[in-house]
């Protein structure tokens, strides 16, 4: 590895669903400060890998080292405290709540006041709330959501909802941000905007980013490193230029093997 230190290190991750292998001895090293993309054809195990990192799936084998500490499984409730925040492929927002409240909820795990202080409106609870409100304003400014603060999330277009989810992850001030297809279903213009937000978030909040994305053009421009998964195995990992030229990646992506198999199956 280079002089920069690893923030996240996966070693020998195995995962299966019933008899189906989802991940086979996957290693992944994410350096602090990088935007590290995970790409691969459908069903390659990208989301599974992200779910392992964020504790939603428990791997059969392997270890996860984050910021120098080893875990076999990170409980979801502890994730925020470790400094890991994530977004979901199909959005996991509070659709009936306002944009502002959604973003504030990103700090849910960080309150210092307890329930009783909260109900009675004691000072520590009020300072928690002020702090959350102030940060939410910052985040909304950053993401250009200010005018929409009081809108119900369900009434926003899809691209903006994705942005709200990014905001909710950012307000936690994560060291590691996991983005599951942050640009899926977006128009070209929205994708560009989202790219800009991700790059700026990295610069402004010193966040390391791991993201899954289908749009190869976007990935190559955005990422410092790219890991390629195919059938649950990592087949390549490195700077975008190397990945672009990698024959295994070209095969997996353009689908020489897969297509032949498809043709055989059809015949």
């Amino acid at each position, binding site marked *: 590895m280079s002089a920069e230190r690893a923030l996240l290190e996966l070693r020998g991750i195995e995962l299966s669903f019933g008899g189906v292998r989802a991940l086979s001895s996957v290693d992944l090293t994410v350096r602090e400060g990088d935007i590290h993309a995970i790409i691969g054809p459908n069903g390659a195990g990208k989301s599974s890998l992200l779910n392992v990192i964020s504790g939603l799936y428990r791997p059969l084998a392997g270890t996860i080292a984050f910021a120098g500490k080893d875990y076999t499984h990170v409980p*979801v*409730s502890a*994730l*925020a*405290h470790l400094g890991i925040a*994530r977004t*979901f492929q199909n959005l*996991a*927002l*509070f*659709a*009936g*709540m306002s944009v502002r*409240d959604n973003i*504030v*909820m*990103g700090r*849910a*795990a960080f*309150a210092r*006041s307890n*329930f009783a202080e*909260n*109900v009675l*409106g004691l000072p520590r*609870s009020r300072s*928690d*709330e002020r702090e*959350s409100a102030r940060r939410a304003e910052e985040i909304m400014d950053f993401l250009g959501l200010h005018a929409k603060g009081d809108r119900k999330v369900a009434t926003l277009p899809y691209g903006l909802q994705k942005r709200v989810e990014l905001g*909710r992850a950012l307000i*936690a001030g994560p060291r590691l941000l996991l983005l599951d297809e942050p640009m899926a279903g977006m128009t070209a213009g929205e994708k560009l905007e989202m790219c800009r937000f991700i790059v700026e978030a990295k610069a402004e909040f010193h966040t390391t980013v791991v993201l899954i994305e289908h749009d190869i053009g976007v990935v190559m421009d955005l990422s410092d490193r790219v890991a390629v998964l195919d059938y649950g195995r990592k087949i390549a990992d490195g700077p975008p230029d190397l990945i672009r030229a990698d024959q295994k990646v070209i095969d997996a992506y353009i689908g020489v093997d897969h297509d032949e198999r498809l043709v055989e199956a059809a015949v």
Partner: protein
Amino acid sequence: MSFFVDVLVGGLLSGVMYSLVALGFVLIYKTSGVLNFAQGAMVLFAALTFVSLTEHKLPFAVSLLVTLAIMVALGWLIERFVLKPLVNQSSITLFMATLGLSYVIEGAAQLLWGTEVHGLDLGIPDTPMQFGSVAISEFDLVAALIAATMVAALTLFFRTTRTGLAFRAVADDQLAAIAVGLRLSHVWAIAWALAGVVALVAGLLWGARLGVQFSLSTVVLKALPVLVLGGFDSIAGAIVGGLLIGAIEKSAEVYIGPFVGGGTEGWIAYVVALGFLLVRPAGLFGQRELVRA
């Protein structure tokens, strides 16, 4: 005309009492999707505990505080030892668990406090007060005020506090709530404890009205049509539903009763609820489930 107003006001005031019971259901249903059939047993348990404490010569305020503590603890214990182990089970399983729970609570109440009927005097006279041409029982009025205060407090809690926000978040989307690091069991425990408090208030008011006896736990049956009308997951719905059911019951008794030989109060609420289910199954204020075709 003034007779009609009399009937209507009487109905609305008794409706407030229904709302109180329905409110306990809504708190739990909204946050965890559990229809808590044991709410009625909790109402009974609260009333019986309070009455027994006062009969043991404890002062009113002390009895109230002790019962409050017991109800909060009871709600918390139920969440911890009954619902938490059943997390991710189907809703019918959870419902059956609360059904079983209602018998356990009733049995426990019987073991602890005995089976005789207790009178409960809250010191509020049940005398009619004259407002213009309309006569209203003072007790009903105070009950309505207490219920209104409770609803206002809960609404304020949900709207303004961080815990209230967490409540709404959990009710809105559980996956998202987990993703931001909310501990669901924590929120559920608070919901159950709050339901315990609501049960206490309902228990005292209903107990003072009907006497503290085991049939008190059947007030849940009256809460069901209220919830069908208002929506199972809406506090506003519980209030409006309760008022509507109360008003319908009283007017039916007066205006339809004579033609069918009386006794409409026993069934009219259910008939209305049934009709409502056909037209608007989510209730007036309930979240309508959007299903992709």
